[in-house]
């Protein structure tokens, strides 16, 4: 009850453009049945925070559709709960986290909240951080702003007193800073800075390569178990998909699959989302296939990321590399002729 959370979903990661043409980074699908925002929101509710402001800029329809009134995170409350706070075109789209121009548009959110501290975070870091523990460390250190780090890598989560955040929002223009991340990076005077060392699994997703690597990490049981901790569930918008069906002839190894899919082909080292169809004699290796995509017969795909509703026609062969996976955009239809 000491913390209010700010999720900066208005921040843009230029490297992820292929997946963020029609959505925010926060609503990029990840780990088969989730969106990136699920990890952030779940960390927040697992840290007993129940006042959350989601700052989002266009195109946020998929994000709004996904989180709704926050019911799946138990954030549909009479008191506190989830607030969806749209950010104008001119204030959104910054590359650093916690842009004051965006926060400034919703100061009422902070004024209404009764909590003394704020955690400012974003969705491009996937981890299992405990913000209550981080707040204890922040208070104990006496620092003005505490940043979560893993060794020397910043995880884009910051805790500070709400009064300080309000002060920064009012004075950022004269101080010549643009965001909370910027203040911390510049170590702006007269504030003092602390670090909170996070030791668990994390992945920073800011490019197609890092997205692909983080997806493949999930196939490593140690890393996966570091993200899906017992007692720290990751909540998401539930769908009423039936269990996944493996038909005669299917062959699946070392893969992660969500519900509602029908598998008739061969799947190895891959992440398969909900309601995907993989027909017979098709072979997938090191692929990430998102919701409702269909792979027809006799396809051979390696190192491919297929966004939602991609339709790969019969006999298509596509080969990417770990550094440069082939990315198929949402709703794309791929035929054998096109690939040639």
């Amino acid at each position, binding site marked *: 009850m000491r913390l209010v959370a700010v999720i900066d979903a208005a921040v843009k990661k230029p490297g992820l453009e292929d997946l963020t043409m029609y959505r925010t980074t926060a609503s990029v699908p990840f*780990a*088969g*049945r989730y969106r990136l925002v699920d990890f952030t929101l779940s960390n927040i509710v697992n840290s007993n925070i129940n006042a959350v402001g989601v700052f989002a800029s266009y195109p946020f329809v998929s994000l709004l559709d996904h989180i709704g009134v926050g019911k*799946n995170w138990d954030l549909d409350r009479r008191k506190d709960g989830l607030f969806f706070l749209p950010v104008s075109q001119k204030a959104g789209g910054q590359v650093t986290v916690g842009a004051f121009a965006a926060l400034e548009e919703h100061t009422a959110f902070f004024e209404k909240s009764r909590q003394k501290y704020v955690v400012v975070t974003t969705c491009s870091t996937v981890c299992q951080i405990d913000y209550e523990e981080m707040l204890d460390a922040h208070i104990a250190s006496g620092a003005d702003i505490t940043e979560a780090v893993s060794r020397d890598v910043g995880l884009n989560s910051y805790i500070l007193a709400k009064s300080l955040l309000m002060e920064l929002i009012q004075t950022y223009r004269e101080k010549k800073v643009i965001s909370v991340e910027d203040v911390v990076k510049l170590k702006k005077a007269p504030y003092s800075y602390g670090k909170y060392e996070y030791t668990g699994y994390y992945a920073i997703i800011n490019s197609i390569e890092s997205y692909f690597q983080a997806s493949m990490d999930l196939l490593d*049981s140690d890393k*996966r178990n570091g993200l*899906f901790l017992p007692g720290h*569930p*990751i*909540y*998401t918008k*539930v*769908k*009423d998909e*039936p*269990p*996944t*069906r*493996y*038909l*005669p002839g*299917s*062959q*699946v*190894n*070392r*893969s*992660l*699959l*969500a*519900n*509602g899919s*029908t598998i008739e082909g061969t799947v190895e080292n891959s*992440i*398969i989302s909900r309601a995907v169809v993989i027909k017979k004699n098709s072979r997938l290796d090191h692929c990430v296939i998102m919701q409702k995509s269909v792979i027809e017969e006799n396809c051979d795909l390696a190192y491919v990321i297929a966004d939602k509703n991609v339709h790969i026609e019969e006999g298509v062969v596509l080969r990417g590399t770990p550094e440069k996976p082939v990315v198929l955009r949402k709703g794309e239809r791929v035929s054998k002729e096109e690939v040639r």
Partner: protein
Amino acid sequence: MKRKVVAMLLAGGQGSRLKSLTHEIAKPALPFGGKYRIIDFPLSNCVNSGIHTVGVLTQYQPHVLHNYIGLGTPWDLDRRSGGVTMLTPYAGMEGIKWYDGTADAIYQNIKYLTEQDPKYVIILSGDHIYKMDYQTMLDFHIEQNAGATISVIEVPWKDASRFGIMNTDENMQIKEFVEKPAEPESNLASMGVYIFDWKKLEKYLQLDNDNKNSSHDFGKDIIPLMLEQGEKMMAYPYKGYWKDVGTVESLWEANMDLLNSNSGLNLNDPAWRIFSSNPQLPPQVIGETGYLQEALINEGCVIDGKVEKSVIFQDVEVKEGASLYECVVMSCVVVGKGAKLSRVIIEPNLEIPENFELKEQNGEIVLLTQDIIDEWKGSAGI
């Protein structure tokens, strides 16, 4: 609303032939199909048919069912008006009365129905697996100007003596209802789905209640009484998948039907979703040593062993070297390394020891319980 329908879902069944599976839960709460409970089917049928007022009548071991249904959120039945209402036996001025028969259960809730003020009442059973549009049946009921309409399905002649059988004329008007006839004249079995005009049903419930010799059962008492009084009773022919999962064997069969694309039971139809509560679990993991052949697997599972022709509920672990053949594995089971099971239903939450072996006995499906595991451990000196 001239067509207002209230569904009354009879969910008090014990299901004694399901052995220990229903010792602590009512039959409608029985897990099925990797993620569902049987009651998901009639509840989803209701909402998919546009019926949003449902009374669920419970009596036997109601806790799991009540907790499961809650406010009815998974079925969109958490509504300001109508929605789902749990109807349990209650104490009144005359003392405490248990539900004594299916008709008595409805009779005791006349007050609920009067408050809802429907034009039609549909009586459903909480222990059948099928997908059915009740509106089409209601259209038939209205069109035929029937006093009651009973949904029927053709069953194999050899099985007909296990069901309530309707003898009808060529227009599907019911001439006679015979409960489990030794020599059936027809193979049209009642599916336990009845539509009544509410005012008419109320009258016959009252008459039946006044009859001290009645067993207060829809099939045995209400239907014959209405026929006797000359009401027009219609049989509504249903064609599609329907299964009464009354035994361990039939529960197993219905699960296996999900693996067969030609069984007529398709859960992947977005136009007729079966809604259920969705636990928040990570995707299923198929490990490097995992091998799957014809399987239905739910989220939260980790499969490192061999799974053939089996249905696996959420949060199950199948360890390396273990093998399952034609099994139904309920939630939170751990199948130990090297364990081998064939044609077995595994109860929830069991930890199956390494190298444990069990298969069907004399052609019958076995239900694996903690007792069997303890006995095996004893004989193996573990």
